[in-house]
């Protein structure tokens, strides 16, 4: 985590993207949507708790 490591970060990011692409290819479109729906609901719950706790402005959700 310091300037000068851009090439290493690019490699790690590419590996991560490849992993996600492989995992997603193994799913049907409906399975992808089901996974995304869970992710979305978790994300909104987390955001709501951050707003409740005063760690994010309420406009964060409605933007």
């Amino acid at each position: 985590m310091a300037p000068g490591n851009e090439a290493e970060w690019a490699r790690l990011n590419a590996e991560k993207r490849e992993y996600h692409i492989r995992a997603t290819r193994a799913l049907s479109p409906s399975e992808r949507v089901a996974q995304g729906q869970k992710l979305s609901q978790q994300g909104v719950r987390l955001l709501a708790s951050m707003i409740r706790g005063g760690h994010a402005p309420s406009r964060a959700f409605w933007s």
Partner: protein
Amino acid sequence: MPHPEPSGPDLNGVVADANAVGLSYVVIGGFSVMANGFVRATKDSDLLVPDGSDVDGAIQRFLDRIEATRLHDDKVLSETEIADAHHIRVRSRHGIVDIMRGGLPPLDYETVAAAAIEGEAGGEPARFAGLRSIVGFKRLADRPQDRRDLEELEAFHGELPKDEIPGLDT
């Protein structure tokens, strides 16, 4: 007026209720991006519906069933407001739902529906916009999230199919 705490999008519920009232629709937006290979979070469910007054009754029944109120003022929409609106954004018991009427070809309802992916959500049949339609919508909207979606879909599919979009390419 402060908004109540948001809830996450429940596409399963949206699809079940749209099917129950006989609303013709194609799922577009974030959930269609997921179906096409980029699984990410979204805050709402987006539906494309046919243009024209024939569908107004089904939209009304759908909005009643999901207990919808308009997002910006919490108003229950009247028949006239539904008929006049090209885009309806509501909060509902299934989270935020955006309803858009089809635009000009190739982003009209008939073209998008013909190219849609048949799938399901929560055991209910559902149609999701196909890649070609998504690319058109995203190119037209061109917000940061749209550009990110196109980048990720290109990483997944390779070169993306592009149709000429009136007003954008002509």
